[in-house]
Each structure stands twice: as structure tokens, then as C-alpha cells.
């Protein structure tokens, strides 16, 4: 579902955008069973600012918590309001599959896979070796042209922006990524917070491309453009 992909990505992107670099980073509400029969049990949704400048979401009088029981806190107001809007949008039953920002926040807060920043950065860089943009086909010529026209500018842009070299190849093994490239990107990514990296990882998984994800986050591409570029082969057919 094309639209779902867009939505997932834009969710993760909004997530990254509102958690900029170096951002300094309580009820018994549980998600428990994810059955669709969970009714809306609250009237009002509001936000409040807690200690340390972190924002919390309140359903009626109770504070929102993550699935593992931690207090749900976000670093800035925009994200808090967006999450509150998601909860407010639920009508009679609570549909968790529509609450994407909430889910992403929970992932960032709970960190269920218990990973630290370095591991996430390494995982992201590993993806570069299988980046969609670097894999070209030899035929049909229409698709080759399309790939050249659409993907090459993005590659060029990222090479200029980050001062790295990433080749493209049409063999099964993929391009050789020099160590210098990886180091520079690693350095760049280390300056971001865990929240940012959580969102970024999600985008990369959806788009199957680190290059496109960085392009989108740096405002070089819009969400729709990035999704389109990611699905070039399917769109061509």
C-alpha cells in the first residue's frame, strides 16, 4: 500500500525533525492487549510540561505511559501535541495502528532491543552496502535510463554534502564503500540523539536506502519524492 508507506515514512521523518541534535533527553495506563475492542476511556487529551523541560501527555487526569510502564515524555512541544492529537483522533475504539508517532516515541523510550547509539549507527551504515540507489540494473534500457536520471542526482548531492564517495554498480555484490566514507558518515550520525536515530532507522528500513533517508531529512527531498525514488522499479512497471 503506497499510501501506508508514505505515512510510515513521514511519521518517522516528523519524528526526526522535531528531535534535533543534542536535545537534553509517571498513572497506570498500559497498552496491554492490542485487541481492537479497547474502547476510548478518556474525554480530554492535554499536554503538560514536567521536570527537565520534558513534555507529558495526559488522558483526562492520568499521565500517559509507555508499554513498559515508564512515564511517556518527549523532548519538545510539537511532538507532544502531535501525539496528543493522535490520541484525540481515536473515536469509539482505540486503533493503535493509526498512532504512528506514539509508537515511535514508545520505541525510543523503551528501547526494546536495548541498543546504544553506536550499535544503531553501525546498523545504519551497514545498510549503505545494500542501499537501493546503488543497485542498478542492466536492462530494460528504459529502467536503466530512469535510474540514471533519478538516482544519480541524489548520489551526487549526498557526495557533495557530506564529502564522501559512494559508487553505484550493477553487479550482484554491490558497490565498494571506502572506509573514509563510513567514518565521515559515522561522525556525522554520532552528533544526533537516540530519538533521532530511532526515527532514522525506521525510515531507512522503510525506504531501503540510507542515501534517500539522509536526503529527505536534510530537506533535499520531500517525503513523496523519496518514496517515489525508493519504489522506482515498481513505478516503472
Amino acid at each position, binding site marked *: *500500500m503506497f*499510501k501506508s508507506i508514505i505515512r510510515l515514512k*513521514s511519521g518517522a521523518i*516528523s519524528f526526526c525533525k522535531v528531535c534535533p541534535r543534542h536535545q537534553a533527553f509517571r498513572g497506570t495506563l498500559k497498552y496491554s492487549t492490542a485487541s481492537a475492542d479497547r474502547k476510548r476511556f478518556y474525554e480530554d487529551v492535554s499536554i503538560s510540561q514536567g521536570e527537565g523541560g520534558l513534555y507529558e501527555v495526559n488522558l483526562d487526569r492520568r499521565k500517559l505511559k509507555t508499554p513498559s510502564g515508564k512515564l511517556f515524555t518527549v523532548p519538545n512541544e510539537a511532538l507532544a501535541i502531535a501525539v496528543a*492529537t493522535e490520541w*484525540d483522533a481515536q473515536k469509539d475504539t482505540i486503533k493503535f495502528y*493509526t498512532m*504512528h508517532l506514539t509508537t515511535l516515541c514508545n520505541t525510543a523510550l523503551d528501547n526494546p532491543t536495548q541498543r546504544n547509539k553506536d550499535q544503531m549507527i553501525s546498523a545504519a551504515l551497514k545498510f549503505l552496502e545494500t542501499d537501493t540507489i546503488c543497485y542498478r540494473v542492466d536492462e530494460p534500457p528504459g529502467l536503466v535510463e530512469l535510474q540514471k536520471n533519478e538516482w544519480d542526482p541524489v548520489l551526487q548531492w549526498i557526495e557533495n554534502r557530506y564529502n564522501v564517495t559512494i559508487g553505484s554498480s550493477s553487479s550482484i555484490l554491490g558497490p565498494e564503500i571506502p572506509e573514509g566514507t563510513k567514518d565521515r558518515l559515522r561522525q556525522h550520525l554520532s552528533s544526533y540523539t537516540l530519538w533521532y536515530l530511532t526515527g532514522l532507522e525506521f525510515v531507512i528500513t522503510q525506504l531501503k536506502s540510507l542515501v534517500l533517508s539522509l536526503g529527505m531529512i536534510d*530537506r533535499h527531498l520531500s517525503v513523496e519524492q523519496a518514496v517515489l525514488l525508493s519504489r522506482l522499479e515498481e513505478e516503472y512497471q
Partner: protein
Amino acid sequence: MASLSSPLRVCREILKELRVIQGLSYKQSLAYNYVLDQFRKNKVTEERYCRAQQEARHASLTYLCLLVSTRNHLALHNLYHGKGERSPEEVAGLVGLRLPTQPGGKGWEK
């Protein structure tokens, strides 16, 4: 959507989505006021390449995309997703029978 580049258009679209989500009282909602505030704040600037403005613009486009896509996804889900099994009462009703009732409840039920 053709060209969404004018901020006014993006703002209107976001507010429309919020109205769909929240119904009639959307003007009192947090998101409505926040969005309007943000757009007003970023409106006045002399420079052509004001970075904060570009960032805000990109963020607003992204959020709009999120709202629209979530709405479409929900519609698709309602259209195609399986509704689950019917309860025994419903199944009996399909063939014109009714389940027997036992006054006083069954022995093992509390």
C-alpha cells in the same frame, strides 16, 4: 496534489485534516492553535533563504503527509481488513436458530 509550495495552502490543508480528525470543536484543540502559531511566527521574513523558515516549511509538508496518509490508511484498512469471526449467536442467527438459554446460569459460571 499539484503544487503545494505555498505555505498558506499547506496550512489550510493541515487544518482541514485536523477538522476531519476532531470534528466540530477542532478550533479549540491544541494542534490547531499550535499550527496557526507556528505559521504566523514564520511568516514574516525578509531573506530569501531563511533557514528556519525552510525547516518549518519542510516540517509542515511532512506533517501534512502524515495526516493524509494516516487517514487513507485507515480507510483502506476498514475496506479490506478482515472483520474477524462471528460470535456463536450470530452464526446461529444466520441459519435461523437461537442458542438455548439456561436461567440461573451454568453451574460453573460465577
